């Protein structure tokens, strides 16, 4: 059945708003995760560390080039995800609406194709 990734996209402002009330945010997220587990739809959930602590591996040249720090100039940085196993895109969207997200952030809803949809490798 369709799997969907809810991709959390935060801005500096929404991240600051979230950090201002991090205890409440953590508690709300915990309740939300529990609700999805009991509905039988949650496959995975992770939050990402500060993008400034990350690195980017660039395949533009002959060898991969590594730079420390966040990815490009993106305003809405990927901050975490929920992987859901739901009945429809509408259901994924309905769950996305219930995410305790900080004001100013966005959630991108993307379908994860099943392995039976990937074209077969011919050798």
């Amino acid at each position, binding site marked *: *059945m369709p799997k969907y990734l809810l991709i959390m996209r935060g801005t500096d402002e929404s991240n600051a708003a979230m950090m201002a009330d991090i205890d409440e945010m953590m508690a709300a997220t915990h309740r939300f995760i529990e609700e999805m587990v009991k509905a039988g739809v949650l496959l995975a959930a992770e939050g990402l560390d500060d993008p400034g602590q990350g690195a980017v591996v660039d395949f533009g040249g002959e060898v991969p080039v590594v730079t420390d720090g966040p990815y490009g100039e993106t305003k809405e940085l990927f901050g975490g995800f929920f992987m859901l196993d739901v009945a*429809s895109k509408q259901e994924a969207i309905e769950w996305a609406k219930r995410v305790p997200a900080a004001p100013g952030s966005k959630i991108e809803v993307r379908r994860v194709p099943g392995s*039976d949809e990937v074209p077969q490798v011919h050798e």
Partner: protein
Amino acid sequence: MGGADVEAVWRIESARIVAALTRFTGDFELAEDAAQEAVAEALVSWPLASPANPAGWLMATARRRAIDAIRRRTALQDRYALLAARAAVDEEIDPDRIDDDVLALMFVSCHPVLSPEARVALTLRVVGGLSSEEIARAFLVPVSTVQARITRGKKTIAAAGVPFELPSAAERRERLSGVLSVIYVIFTEGSTATSGDRLLRPDLAYEAIRLARTLAALQPAEPEVHGLLALCELTAARFPARTGQDGSPILLEDQDRRRWDISAIRRGLAALARASARGLGPYGLQAAIAATHASAPSVEATDWDRIVVLYEALGRIAPSPVVELNRAVAVAMASGPAQALAIVDELIAADRLPGSHLVPTVRGELLARLGRRSEARAELELAARLCPNRRERSVLLRKAAALS
């Protein structure tokens, strides 16, 4: 918001709304009817004006419809007065109570007073939030048949005076195994359709997995719940490799194992580990067999001795001719077709699977491996005549033809 949005919200909310309303009114039938009325109203009004809180809207509307229905029953005036007084404070679902209520709803939907068909239909509709149309499509039966099963099921629950509560300690184990078997029946119909053109119905298998996940979250200390979940995940992991592009079945030995769903296998193995807490039950043992296949790189490299041992254990705690037949297949792989044929011939002598295509299918395969080609062909042709699934039938006929 359109019909698909109403369906999506209902998928998430149905169990909690029907459970809360049943608790609230003490009447499962009334609760389910009121909930369905709320869904019907949503289908009309949401496309015109989207509610700010769709889940709350459904709950409030269903509650109003329940109160209307009770009001119509004049004999219950006193009860209505009580409800009206409580309505104001009860708008929100009580989070401390709702898990037990959803669990109680699963037990009611799978109650032994119900026919097996009614248990499946009620569970999918009330707990799973599917419409009668979706259930009918999944089981290839007319919508009116599903509706009749649900209506009759609700009447049976009322007539038998089934209380809305968790089963007592004395009957809990047995009732839980009743719930598990309903989920298993739904899964099996999805993973090996007993009739029709398609071998797999992944949508139906998905519903079973979803129900098993819910049950595992609500009953985390029950090993067999995790065992069933593991069995479903590990079996479904092979779906992408089980049919060709034209929908024809691909046997285990011919499957491209790179197409197995690795994430599903990992979830299945994790559930199996939780199922192993106090020794495996019947579902856990079947899951352990599926796990042995899932972790093998090929049929040849499979630990068939382990599978034989697991089938022997399964045969001791849950004896059945199908388990014996599967044990024969495993014995054939572990020790050769001659020993396996003896097990199958014993089954036939005892007439323990009359009319099943599985016995001649396995016997035909074993005879073919022993080089007894004409006997093998006759068995496979017999199997094809008995086989209810068109896809499987054509595979059997192809195999039989290859032996001439």
